[in-house]
């Protein structure tokens, strides 16, 4: 066990965990940030995607000890009023069904749009293809990402 200080959603949080614990479980069990989801534990499904220094990362295979000092952004940190452009587009396109994979989808979309404000279809496919959805929301995800780009992107 070790005392680690993390920067999560703009706030410094201290946790006492083993440094080889995956970030996912630190977020969920130690910090109560359950918006980030466990889906496969092997970095295969993307439900656990969070942003570390603006880059999409699979938190289930990222040890907490490896990211000390980095800026971590989770679904809870996007907006207190669901008004982040990606959230607004997700609502407008009625993307979620069961909703379980959507925090990962949304965080991957945020990362994509931060890097490429006007992604091509191929770039959307490429960035979003690894985030699995069992309900079949993919086409709506694509429409929502395009909508964000058309409506001014993410800040």
């Amino acid at each position, binding site marked *: 066990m070790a005392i680690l200080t993390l920067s999560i959603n703009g706030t410094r949080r201290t946790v006492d965990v083993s440094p080889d614990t995956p970030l996912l479980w630190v977020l969920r069990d130690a910090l109560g940030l359950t918006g980030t989801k466990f889906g*496969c534990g092997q970095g295969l499904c993307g439900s656990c995607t969070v942003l570390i220094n603006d880059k999409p990362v699979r938190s289930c295979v990222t040890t907490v000890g490896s990211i000390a000092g980095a800026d971590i952004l989770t679904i809870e940190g996007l907006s207190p009023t669901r008004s982040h452009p990606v959230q607004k587009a997700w609502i407008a396109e009625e993307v979620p069904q069961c909703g379980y994979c959507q925090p990962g989808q949304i965080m991957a979309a945020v990362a994509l749009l931060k890097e490429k404000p006007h992604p091509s279809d191929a770039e959307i496919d490429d960035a979003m293809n690894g985030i699995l959805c069992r309900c079949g929301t993919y086409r709506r995800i694509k429409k929502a990402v395009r909508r964000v780009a058309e409506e001014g992107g993410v800040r």
Partner: protein
Amino acid sequence: MKTQLNRREFIRVSAGVGGGLVLGVMIPAFDAYGELVEQKENEFVPNVWLRIARDGTVTILVARSEMGQGVRTALPMIVAEELDADWSKVRIEQAVASADYGSMGTGGSTSVRTSWDRLRKAGASARMMLLQAAAGVWGVKETECRTEAGAVIHKPTGRSLPYGDLVDAASKLKAPENPPLKDPKDFRIIGRKTPRTDTPEKVDGSAVFGIDVKVPGLLHAAVARCPVFGGKVVRYDDMKAKGIDGVKRVAQIDSGVAVIANSTWSAFQGRDALAVTFDEGSAASLSSETIATMLGEYATKKAAVAEKAGDVTSAMASAATKVSASFDAPFLAHATMEPMNTTAWVQKDRCEIWAPTQDPQGYRREAARLCALPEEKVIVHTTYLGGGFGRRWETDVLVEAVQCSKAAGVPVRVTWTREDDMRHDFYRPVSHHLLSGGLSAEGKLVAFTHRIVAPSITGQSSPERIKDGLDKGAVEGTVNLPYDIPNMQIEYVMANTPVPIGSWRSVYPSQNVFALECFIDELAGAAGKDPFEFRRALMLNRPRMLRVLELAAEKSGWGKPLPAGRYRGIAFSPPSFFRTPVAQVAEISIDNRSVRVHRVVCAIDCGIVINPDGLAVQMEGGVVYGLSAALKGEITLKRGRVEQGNFDDYPILTLEETPVVETYSVQSNEAPTGTGEPGLPAIAPAVANAVFQATGKRIRRLPIRLG
């Protein structure tokens, strides 16, 4: 048994006993179905389905589980329609498990279909009481009043009273027995595209799934189970497991050995550190090959006849052309994105459960049995479900959670890893199909047989319900066919295996319709007919089916030229147990020896459509889930073990592989039927039939693989 007192009598009795003011405090009352309704202060509670607060907020209870199919929108829309509610003032609350709601089981595409009458009456009954209350306040005739979006209007004077102002007056009235229902032409909520009520919570991480439930003092458990079905724990060594940080306790439970820890990760690590010796039992030599051989052998055994017409033997003998083929479909995992989990808190005199379950009442019954408590002492909270697809009917994870909480004496959540989920599912059954058809010289289908060889879900869970070897569920999708065939016989051979099986979105039609509709295409080919025209000719006496088939053909541009390299296939999914016919046309290309699906046109007749976008979403969902199975899904066994473990060896459809799905519904004023499953069965055969157009090769095995 419920006491059959009406509201007014009960209130009078209460007042007599209590001797004081009873209105405005907690008083029990009975709704129109004789169910006990708990009255709340400052609220009008006309029945178990809704309550109205003084500020006009209407709280509607949803008794079915939200697993992505939109029940928390569609069902409240039905209540709100008949209540004439202001939709913007409607709030949704998930009902805890109780017999008061009728069946809460969420499966079989039944939620809207079986709630329709009951929810309409619940809303209409409350509306009548509010209308009567307003008429009483004004001292006018009820017939001079009408309702409109959350208010009663006095027609001659235009005065209006919002529902919130009528809470006290309406609470004193008796619920009408047979409230008048709206004419569908007056619907203003049903049939209108309505945003889902659960979307906001699902874009900011606040939606609570089973895996997210927070309970003070909660511990986490992971269970080591025998990798072979039916195996048992012989002994275990937990020394290393107990040395893992956070591990609190190790306990043997029915399904294996549980490690209970203060975090999910510690529980997983502790579980992996266990050394368990299992007696693998008799299934240890099972493999996909031995099962395939067994199905082949069973195919020649005596079959149970599920349905027959005419004299198929002589019609087949005298047919001008005979065609026969066999088809195979594999075991499939559900692979819900939310891994299996349940949270249980067993105390001396009560038990509380939080579960992403499709069967809260079944969970309540089972928890009561395990704890030796009466059901009233068991509270089951249904959370959001991160996918269900039939998997969450099963109580296996509930049993584990209850046993872990009993062992630890504190609330415990059992969480499965993806590998646990993939290797301990209740799989979609494997199946083998023999079909034959006889065509007349004019190419008319005069004889048809379909023999299904498959394990029986009912035969596994409740064998006493099987009569004469026939599992009626196992022939769904291929009985009561939409086709007029003068001589036909549908047969079933039960071929059970030790592999646990269960309901998987659309259940047996997921494979029976694949075999049927691929074979119908083969027959069309043998008759020299267009696949759409061949089906159409068999449906001429069934106008409802015909409209659906023709709608799919029209919207897909059937018969019109396609760009080079694109091919179409058509398939029809019979109404089956969900009572909803669907026709689909898939447009594909072959890309690097793999199938790419570009566009799927769905035509459906599901009666009155509650939420048009909700219907479209269900078709999109059925198609994508069905395409994962058609193109990729296969669970195989070796040495009694499931070989797949995660999404690398059990891949599912990805974003870039997903086609455009278009949904067209037949206009209808009939009562609504199911939509959650009917979008699935036709997609595999539609794609397989398109592959034939592209390659000239018939697909007779799922998943579709081009050699």
